[in-house]
């Protein structure tokens, strides 16, 4: 009898300790407040083990803007991904701590939950979590040893608090998760185009003309003129499609000899040579220079490329070859054959993709600056 009671008691005490511990250490993050996204952007998912919570996003935002993440403690993610430029840096080739020009142009960070869920220009990582630590350890970007970074973060009281509220431990996985959670909230959905889609404003005649061209496949027989852009840049998001590698194509920037591996570097398939991620065109007027190597400085140059600068190669998208606004177009020299006026109208439409609120939204801005202001 005594032994049985003692056993019960022991069990009770153990359970109490375990439970108390559980409740104390296990963070209780709260579902992100005020979230809403446009219906037409489509379905999205977040990783089961990294839901959008207020705590994760707050932590991620701080990390994103903290130069502590770099080896010399001088350069944050926001060095290359600046809010006022829709999270790009305006450089042809970005430079990190090594001051060596990077081989790729910095892409905008926007509406990342939609579009291709393979990141970087060549799609070499499959989630934001997987991506987040790569710039930190890259010697030419932030050049930071991760164990050192963890020690540095552990030494900051605020990080102890933020991590314990959001995830628990300060470790690699949780750094990556927090950065990803913050980046997932970078939703741009209040451009002039969005307001047009919601029916609250009208586009000017030129912008509307450009919108029609943007969404139309040219059909010479039906005398329908078009720019064919939504064959690759989807109608609402303006990004590539999200199924598998559908959002990667070769849009004719280079001929066979100059073609970089692109997606082929990831899949090894020859038919993927020179395929790059179709980027979102949201805030495109703010994110010059353009293309994976920043080769074009203006949207007019981009239009000239699609209209008369297409280079032939074995993997050039057939969608580009087929789209033509004149009868019997020369397949050896693909061109949209748009007029000056039509090209200008498409550029006018591209300007409606600028979201003035997105680039000043304080939810996305540097928390350190806000703290200084409050002090």
């Amino acid at each position: 009898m005594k032994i049985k009671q003692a056993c019960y008691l022991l069990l009770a005490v153990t359970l109490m300790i375990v439970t108390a511990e559980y409740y104390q250490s296990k963070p209780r993050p709260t579902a992100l407040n005020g979230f809403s996204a446009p219906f037409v952007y489509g379905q999205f998912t977040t990783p089961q083990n990294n839901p959008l919570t207020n705590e994760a996003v707050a932590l991620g935002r701080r990390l994103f803007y903290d130069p502590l993440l770099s080896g010399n403690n001088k350069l944050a993610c926001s060095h290359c991904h600046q809010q006022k430029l829709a999270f790009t840096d305006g450089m042809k080739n970005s430079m990190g701590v090594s001051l060596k020009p990077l081989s790729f142009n910095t892409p905008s960070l926007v509406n990342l939950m939609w579009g291709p869920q393979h990141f970087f220009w060549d799609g070499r990582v499959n989630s934001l979590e997987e991506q987040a630590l790569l710039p930190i350890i890259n010697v030419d970007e932030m050049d930071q040893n991760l164990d050192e970074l963890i020690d540095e973060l552990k030494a900051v009281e605020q990080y102890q608090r933020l991590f314990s509220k959001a995830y628990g431990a300060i470790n690699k996985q949780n750094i990556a998760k927090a950065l990803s959670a913050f980046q997932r909230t970078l939703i741009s959905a209040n451009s002039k185009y969005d307001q047009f889609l919601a029916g609250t404003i009208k586009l000017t005649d030129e912008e509307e003309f450009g919108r029609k061209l943007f969404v139309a496949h040219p059909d010479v027989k039906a005398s329908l003129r078009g720019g064919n852009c939504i064959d690759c840049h989807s109608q609402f998001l303006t990004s590539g499609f999200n199924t598998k590698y559908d959002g990667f194509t070769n849009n004719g920037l280079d001929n066979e000899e100059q073609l970089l591996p692109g997606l082929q570097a990831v899949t090894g398939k020859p038919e993927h040579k020179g395929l790059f991620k179709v980027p979102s065109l949201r805030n495109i007027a703010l994110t010059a220079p353009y293309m994976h190597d920043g080769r074009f400085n203006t949207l007019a140059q981009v239009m000239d490329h699609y209209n008369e600068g297409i280079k032939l190669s074995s993997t050039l998208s057939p969608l580009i070859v087929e789209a033509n606004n004149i009868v019997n177009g020369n397949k050896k020299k693909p061109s949209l054959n748009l007029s000056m006026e039509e090209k200008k109208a498409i550029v006018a439409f591209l300007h409606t993709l600028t979201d003035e609120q997105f680039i000043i939204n304080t939810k996305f801005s540097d928390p350190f600056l806000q703290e200084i202001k409050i002090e």
Partner: protein
Amino acid sequence: MKSYLSITKYTILVCTALLITACSKEPVKQPDSEKSQALVLLRGLPTLDTKHSVAIIELDPESAKFGEILQDYELSNLAEPLHHLYYSPTGRLYATGLDINCSLAEIKLVRDLNGAPLIKGHHCLDTQGQVIGEDIMWHTSNGKEYMFVTFMGGGGLDQADGGSVGVFDPQTNDVVKIISARKSQVDAGKPYIMYPHGISAYKDRMVIASTIHPDLKTGVGSTITIIDLNSLSPIETITVEDAKPVGFPSSPVEVLFVRPSIVENVKPGVLVNTMFGFETWYIPFNEADKTFAEPVKIYNGVDEGTGVPLEFYGTKDELFISHAIPGVVKRYKLSSLPELVSSGPDIKAELGAHHMIFYPSSSGRKLIAVQNNLLNLGNQADNDPTDIDFIAKVNDHSLTIHDLTSSKRLKTINFKEKYNKGIENIEALFGSGFIHHH
């Protein structure tokens, strides 16, 4: 000692319970694919004490949630339900309505934190007094895009020959023009618009069908009317009728302007289903001089054992026509139009076979869901005052789900049994569904 033991036991119990709740409070669940989800308009049934609503429902037979209503957005201030759902080309969701105070509405959809669709609100639009909204289509007139809506009741139910087509600014939803031409107010032999329902268009010609007075007793139509989209006015009324199998006028209901954008290289022409004629007619269109030839009967329900043909829906390669009696959807080769050449066995739905959607299951199986209800009026057996005998019989209140390849039925959801509601209309979530409807 006894109480001591019970405290220990109690502690164990509480701790265990707490641990269980701690474990179950894991992060938000991931959504299922929404390709198999649909929007439905539901009618509250007066004798069953339910409210009209717009709902999102799961229709994947392979899902554990099959038949489940994921969100039921009640329209508690409406005496009559919303009638038909349509997406605009820019992804806005609209519904026509049977309530005198809500003949046309825009429904606000957003996405929640899980990426799932959420019905956030609705607002009834000013129709300048036009009532009983039926069909909507977006089309251009003089290079400008408009939203066209047929109002079967026109300026009011007291008009014995009412009916109009509302032309709306697709951005602001403002009325640009009400096209109306009541038979009693135009000279004899001149084109008129009466009880318009079906609508379709090709280039600068729009066609609307004259169906039935919304009170279902004042009058029945037998014509289609052509509208010139340059002037936004009716230019010709064509009778589409011969035999009267049930003694009523033919009651043309849905129309489809068959055109090259639907069927490659086709000579354009208009298909018309006559609700009480039980027929499908074809009216050839001469593009050169913009004239319509004599209507030709291409399907006779009396010979085929079908009645009350209703909708036209198209996929990439097939045309589907629903027949409320006996409740079948017939399928034809799109490429053979305007001839109706069968492309597969009948889809055996239920009495009232009406609207439909096309969608994939999670394993990629191609499916069709058919909504079986002519009109969701009540049944006399329920002591329902809205009962109209003939129509109550063609109301199964169900959705039947079939394999699109074999036409075989896989599942049935009876809304009256399951939710105490009728089902008025079905539409897939944006991005899937059908290709040609108008």
